């Protein structure tokens, strides 16, 4: 399941929800956290804006794909929208499986795909007073389907 949330993500509850199935042997989680820097600039806070209908539809598709591709029992993902302070969780992904390899793979798949496919945008507010919608020069140059790891957040 994939959800957008305007309030803080409850990572503890999300992690606990993963382990309900007695066949689960391993749970892998990823939390993307607001960093205090990006591309050399000091960041004070972030704002996430989503094209909600399509973001939820695409997020759910990615979760479904992970469930099909990997031998996992449960995959969950939530993404925050609105204003976030440093240290707050912007996105949380969890995968549970009988064996750990599949849980690692599914968790990585979801966050990798989310970052290139789900229509959510981020505005960085800098400590020097400026603010910018993050629009990676590299990605713009390479086209809309390229969005490698070098970018912006974790």
């Amino acid at each position, binding site marked *: 399941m994939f959800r957008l949330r305007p309030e803080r993500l409850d990572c503890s509850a999300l992690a606990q929800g993963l382990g309900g199935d007695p066949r689960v042997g391993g749970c892998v989680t990823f939390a993307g956290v607001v960093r205090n820097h990006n591309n050399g600039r000091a960041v004070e806070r972030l704002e996430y*804006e*989503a094209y909600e209908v399509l973001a939820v539809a695409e997020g759910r598709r990615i979760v479904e794909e992970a469930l099909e591709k990997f031998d996992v029992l449960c995959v969950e993902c939530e993404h925050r929208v609105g204003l976030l302070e440093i240290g707050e969780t912007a996105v949380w992904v969890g995968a549970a499986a009988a064996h750990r390899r599949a849980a690692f793979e599914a968790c990585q798949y979801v966050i990798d795909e*989310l*970052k290139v496919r789900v*229509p959510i*945008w981020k505005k960085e507010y800098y400590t020097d007073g400026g603010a910018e919608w993050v*629009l990676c020069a590299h*990605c713009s140059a390479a*086209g809309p389907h390229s969005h490698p790891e070098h970018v912006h957040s974790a």
Partner: protein
Amino acid sequence: MKKTVLEIEVRYFAGMRERAGRDSEVVETAAGTPAELYAELRARHGFALEQAHLRVAVNDAFAKWETPLSPGDSVVYIPPVAGG
């Protein structure tokens, strides 16, 4: 041949929303596809991004740039995403 004029709803997000100065607008256009419509809107609002750097959604689903538009369609241009 006279081109049909359509009413299309365009919604804007993030940097494009700020550049356009609005969340959405209804445009009357002779554009037959999202690609043609983007060329019009880019000229009007001064959007920086070339079409090649965007994706487009029609009626809340990803669509091709050459999909024929129909009256009342809702169009969203999607700049490079930055979630996560």
